[in-house]
């Protein structure tokens, strides 16, 4: 299993190198500043280039994560937590390329009880869905998702969640939205080594203690009162 962690680190290093050549999509400066300024996030990706997302896809994802996780008294906004980076890295990872996914046909839609039946890997699903979602947004509001007002973003996301948007030449909208929402949650609450949950802001929100959990005494000591936590991630004690 160490092998996989090493692989991931190497992969992230590669991502950093790759980003220099790549991209017009700039990240908010605050994210880099936070990453540079905090020991705890030292192993989070220091730069923000995308290894999978195109600039247009990146703009869509950034708008989604900033809308779902706005800056407020509880956390910084989604891009400042690295949620877009998390999604980009996930789509470029083995999972995004269909690892552990049975991929043989024939392909049929099936009943709801039969689960995921599309011939698409997660990265293929995103690639097909985002332009279709943006096209639907243009049709509804005259602009792509990243350019519409917060009220319009809210209405469009709710409509996607409820299956009221049609993704022309794209996958069923509920399947895309379900995966997108799950990935936003993963970015928010997975260990920061995956690129999201920067400064463990997601963990702090729910008082999750992170990787150190020796609770033989705490189980009684903190009965019905909040256990003070200063969450540590995998990179903090590597």
């Amino acid at each position: 299993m160490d092998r996989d962690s090493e692989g991931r680190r190497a992969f992230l290093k590669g991502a950093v190198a790759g980003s220099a050549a790549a991209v017009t999509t700039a990240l908010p400066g605050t994210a880099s500043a936070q990453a540079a300024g905090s020991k705890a996030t030292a192993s989070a990706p220091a730069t923000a280039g995308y290894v999978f997302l195109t600039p247009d896809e990146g703009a869509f994802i950034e708008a989604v994560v900033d809308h779902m996780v706005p800056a407020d008294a509880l956390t910084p906004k989604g891009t400042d937590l690295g949620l877009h980076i998390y999604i980009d890295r996930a789509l470029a990872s083995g999972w995004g390329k269909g690892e552990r996914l049975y991929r043989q046909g024939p392909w049929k839609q099936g009943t709801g009880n039969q689960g995921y039946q599309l011939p698409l890997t997660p990265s293929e699903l995103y690639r097909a869905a985002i332009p279709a979602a943006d096209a639907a947004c243009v049709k509804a509001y005259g602009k792509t998702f990243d350019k519409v007002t917060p009220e319009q973003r809210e209405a469009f996301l709710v409509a996607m969640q409820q299956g009221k948007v049609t993704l022309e030449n794209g996958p069923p909208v509920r399947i895309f939205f379900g995966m997108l929402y799950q990935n936003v949650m993963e970015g928010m609450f997975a260990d920061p080594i995956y690129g999201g949950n920067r400064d463990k802001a997601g963990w702090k929100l729910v008082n999750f203690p992170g990787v150190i959990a020796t609770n033989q005494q705490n189980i009684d000591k903190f009965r019905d009162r909040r256990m003070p936590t200063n969450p540590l991630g995998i990179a903090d004690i590597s």
Partner: protein
Amino acid sequence: MAARKLKEVDAVIIGLGWTGGILAKELSEAGLKVVALERGRMTTTEADFQLQQVRDELRYVQRQEMMQDASRDTVTMRNTPKQDALPVRRLGSFLPGEAVGGSGLHWSGGTWRWSDNEFKVRSLYEQRYGSKFISAEMSDLRDWGISYAELERYYDKFEYMAAVSGKAGNLNGRIQPGGNPFESPRAREYPLPPLKNVLSSQLFAEAATKAGYHPFPRPAANASRAYTNPDGASFGGCQYCGFCQRFGCEANAKASPHITVVPAALKSQNFELRTNAWVTQILKDPSAKRVTGVLYTNLLTGEELEQPASMVMLCTFTMNNTHMMLLSGIGQPYDPATQTGVIGRNYCYETRTGANLFFEGRTFNRFISAGGTNWVIDDFNANWDFDRAPHGFVGGYIVSAGHNTNLPIGNRPVPGGTPAWGTAWKQALAKWSDASMSITSSGGSMPHRYNYLDLDPTYKNAFNQPLLRMTFDFKENEHRMNAHAAQVVNELAKSLNATRMGSASGKPQSWTVVPYLSTHNGGGTPMGTDPKTSAVNPFLQSWDAHNLFVMGANVFPHNGAYQPTGLVGALAYRTADIIKSRYLKNPGPLVSA
């Protein structure tokens, strides 16, 4: 190209989880030359479950690192025989493990002694409620051909091997305070005292006591303090880290084959373990009622090999055992149209429902837990005084609470009506997620004519063999049981006066492959006393090949409310004993057909 034929051994074991590990140890210690073929890789705590890497929810829960790789082998599913079955493309409802240790690596440790009520289910219900109480479509409901009394010593052996922590409720017929008063009599206490409770199990226990029920700590193979088992395996004390289900244990506090029976077997010169060895077929001698060995592929080289053996032990996960029998053509496949055949018969699952409670001002510290921090009531399961007549169902359910393995990606409780994102969502998470607990029921599942397993006509695995096809849905018996369970759960939940509550649903449910439900699948190669309706006899010996023994919950003719592993382990120890004491002296059928 013909497979390279290896030298014959006394026994070949397919799959090295709990049952394979138990047989590996017992048979090699008895002097037999034993080879185990495991399609996954080697596992050790030192290499695989060290801090900090092991505490990674994304890797082990969402990405399912220790589970069967569905891209190579999965099942197809449908709810009724009229539908087209489609592949389970990503595992969801159940999660078989794939490595040395199998699902024993990632279980929570729930360990129960199934009682005589289960093994004598048909005769007890007919005697008390009349034969019409069991519907025609449940005609495969049967007595198992075993008794609690003959299993007691094997339950005991498993519990002491696996560091089970609990409190006896019935010692030699005397009811003990603090334990389960409905359990069958045990000869001695658990090897270790119960784990500590948490606030949610404490509140549940108080409510259950007030309602007149009999709560007790769930027995679990999580060592409540440091322990050395009779085979010399060392356990650390449980640290209530909250990463139990789906994870390996870095403290060696959770019993697993890779720290107990497997290293014990590896001490013997008679035992050889081959990992990355994928068995495709059990070979049979068409002229005699026996098998001759197995065909397997070395996954590291692609080479196909034949391993001849005097005995074959089929020890993979529940459904995979049924799959192997079908792929090997051993035993007649079950046909629901005529209700003939035995392989794939009696496939059963599990029913669940639950209520979510939110208490303003309370703090559960829900990330502190172990597999055994749950408390349970058995008043609607092993309690034979519970009258099923007015409710019309066979079997029972347990009810429990206690925050086993809540982690932040997968477990984000907020009251109903909360937005799914935005500031209001974050505020609700901050306010409610650690002020919440749930009460859940887990119920049995009875055989039904149209719930069964066979080979899929369309989809294939990585070896171009047909996938196993599951045809399953919950039926009237489960619906009635669930309706009753929801009522009991909701009454208990209401008595706790939570600020907000999401009630348990008692409505009929249909089985779906998402989300996760339970890895307590049962049946497919049911045991019994009649070779026309069972795949194996009560010693788990194939009726069709006397030197083939089939382990696992696939031998259960129905599924009870308890977790299966305690019984699975006890049955494996019993089979090992009968092989040593009787079979080796006179190889042949142990029960005459």
